[in-house]
């Protein structure tokens, strides 16, 4: 049984690593944008700690939405998921394995951003704060994985990629991952309230101390509520399939 989980994780990691069309944009884009906005643009180093907090969420969002959303949709269409139900694969193995693979890929992306932040942008944080930030970023995968799962069960393979792209960029911009939502018109700030990306970024900012005063507890509760809703959606979409 434990064997089945390990084999499933190995298969998922191999699959992801052999899809350059997926791996390259989700790995390269976050660190590239971070370097641009946080290091290269003159004066941007002042924002580096802020952007480190928010781009960490961006780095996790990509693999979760694409790996789960597009991946599940494709495997469902190909009959792979049906076959998995007929063979004695543990029901949770696929979910655990895909989540692990997502976190592993996201960790590479996070590592690159952290390295640029520490060595090129001059961000100085205590070891505890780095660890806290890492924890927040990795846990951020959960709501995005669940949203990706729902998306993968609802949409066909081609539509799922399109929807994942829109969700990816939409949640990045409107959630204030690229620039603070305070620079946007007020209405967009209200949209941010329902986006997991916004609340997760605010939690990360609270931990890194780069966002000034934040209502940390409020954002944690909001993130938990959105995660619960995403779990409900994923369950509903999964049940509808069967």
């Amino acid at each position: 049984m434990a064997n089945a989980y390990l084999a499933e994780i190995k298969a998922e990691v191999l699959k992801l690593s052999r899809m350059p069309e997926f791996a390259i944009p989700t790995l390269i884009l976050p660190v590239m944008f971070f370097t641009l906005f946080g290091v290269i643009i003159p004066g941007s180093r002042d924002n580096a700690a802020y952007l480190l907090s928010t781009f960490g969420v961006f780095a996790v969002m990509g693999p979760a939405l694409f790996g789960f959303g597009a991946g599940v949709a494709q495997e469902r269409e190909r009959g792979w998921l049906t076959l998995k139900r007929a063979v004695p694969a543990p029901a949770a193995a696929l979910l655990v394995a895909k989540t692990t693979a997502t976190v592993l890929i996201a960790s590479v992306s996070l590592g690159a951003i952290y390295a640029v932040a520490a060595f090129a942008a001059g961000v100085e944080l205590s070891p505890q704060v780095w660890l806290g930030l890492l924890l927040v970023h990795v846990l951020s995968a959960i709501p995005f994985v669940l949203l990706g799962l729902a998306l993968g069960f609802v949409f066909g393979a081609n539509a799922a990629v399109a929807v994942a792209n829109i969700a990816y960029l939409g949640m990045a911009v409107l959630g204030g991952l690229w620039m603070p939502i305070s620079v946007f018109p007020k209405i967009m700030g209200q949209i941010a309230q329902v986006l997991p990306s916004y609340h997760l970024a605010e939690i990360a900012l609270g931990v890194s101390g780069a966002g000034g005063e934040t209502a940390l507890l409020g954002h944690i509760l909001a993130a938990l509520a959105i995660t619960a809703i995403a779990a409900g959606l994923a369950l509903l979409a999964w049940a509808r399939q069967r």
Partner: protein
Amino acid sequence: MTVSDDLAPPILKADALTRRYGRKTALDGLELSLSEPGVLALLGPNGAGKTTFVQTALGLTRPSSGRLSVFGARPGDRAIRTRIGVMMQDTDLAHTLTGRELLELFASYYPDPADLDALIERCALGSFIRQRYGKLSGGQKRRIQFALALVGQPDLLFLDEPTTGLDTEARRALWAIVRDVAASGTLVILTTHYLEEADALADRVVVLKDGRVIADDTADGLRTRMGGAIIECVTALDDDALNALPGLIALSRSGRKLRLQVSNAVPALKALFELDPELSDLGVAQPTLEDAFEALTGQPQTEGA
């Protein structure tokens, strides 16, 4: 305590098994009990309920009413699934994994998996087992899927159109393995539209129509039950004249060639020669499984469903 209590439960047993999809009835009170290892060919025209039956046995769909038990338990139980192997028809596996990686993944699901090197050798996958699945030809993909169905050393093996896309050599090689697996104590349930395949492999043939079993016999039994002979010839006679032939069961034409199914060859041939001494290109044959199938279902066995 009756005698049957002492016996192991049947491998597969259907009692009044019914499955409806909206107003369509796919399985209509199907009764079937399978206790012996061997190869069972499940035949039937499109929409007869073959796929629904297999999906119910795999626990992928539930009966609307009635019961289906596999090894005495509910289909879909994990303990049951460890004893089942399956090769489905419309399945595409992960393109980026190699055949070997797929086998390793599937082997991890079973308590007592086959030795992979031996399995690869047995299924003759060696030349392409380290290539990515997505790069393989259709036939090679089918052969990987076949090996995946065997990896758990199943007691019950479902093969849905296993030889589609295979060349003659690969098809015969697969048949040899199926015979072997069946001889070692596995019940193989084969759905196929190649009646030649059913004829070559099956110890037992079950024909479904409209969600029910309409015949359950050996291939020879089906042919014998149908009886008679097939006469093929070229003649100037018209249908009215031919309808007067003794023991005529069915008549069909393709081009100039006439095909007659008769209950007894000798009197029919005598009458034919009397009516048309110019008769040519004569051939007389035993009915094939195909003939038996057509006589039973009223339609030729066709691909799909």
